């Protein structure tokens, strides 16, 4: 069963990817954050460049910070962004 996910991008990644959000149907083999990142990297170009190499980024699932091995619940809101710089 594909997993429906709502992806959000903020700040630098929002500008680089040219979108603030998108709805995707993640394929069967995508069950963790790491799987999702790999799936998005396979889009190539800027996606590979930002998510497929050694560039730092952070992921939140349903508005809580998540590790790469965290499971993706169906219909989750998954945000991807650069390390934060507030204050």
């Amino acid at each position, binding site marked *: 069963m594909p997993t429906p996910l709502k992806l*959000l991008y*903020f*700040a*630098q990644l929002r500008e680089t990817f040219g979108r603030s959000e998108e709805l995707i149907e993640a394929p069967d083999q995508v069950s963790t954050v790491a799987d999702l990142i790999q799936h998005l990297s396979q889009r190539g170009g800027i996606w590979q460049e930002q998510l497929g190499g050694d560039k*730092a980024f952070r992921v*939140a699932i349903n*508005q*809580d*910070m998540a590790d790469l091995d965290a499971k993706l619940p169906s219909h989750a809101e998954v*945000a991807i*962004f*650069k*390390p*934060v*710089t*507030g*204050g």
Partner: protein
Amino acid sequence: MTKMAKPNQSPTRITVAVQHQDFDLQHEHKELVDKDRSIGAVVAFIGMVRDLNLADDVVALELEHYPGMTEKSLQQIAAQAAERWPLQAARIVHRVGKMHPGDQIVLVLTASPHRHDAYEANMFMMDFLKTKAPFWKKEWTNEGPRWIEARESDTSATDRWSTSS
């Protein structure tokens, strides 16, 4: 339960705000102490927009956040501080949108019976805010805009709280 309850230990009043408009320290302070006569110390930290960063003139600063998660994150940071130090109240106000050198960006207020707790809790909250709360800064210089990169020194500032008692 009456024997177990800690005496005079009421829950910390925690409030957070993410807003475009400026804040007023005097007003915020008055709201915070709110006739609570057990408060002996209030520490206020205000972060300001600097006009110089990485040797370039900064003409404006733009702050972006993650509506919903940012507020939740600030609330959690204040709650963590309240677990470590006896605080009567904690308040975080963080501005978003476009700001200019000399403008206030962030306010952290901590109220405690004694000053050391208020100081430490305040530093803890700022250190965590800088590395955990979803905000991103974009700097406008005469060359154009650029996103600010996260700094390693901010991460070490957060890490020191996990080793100290």
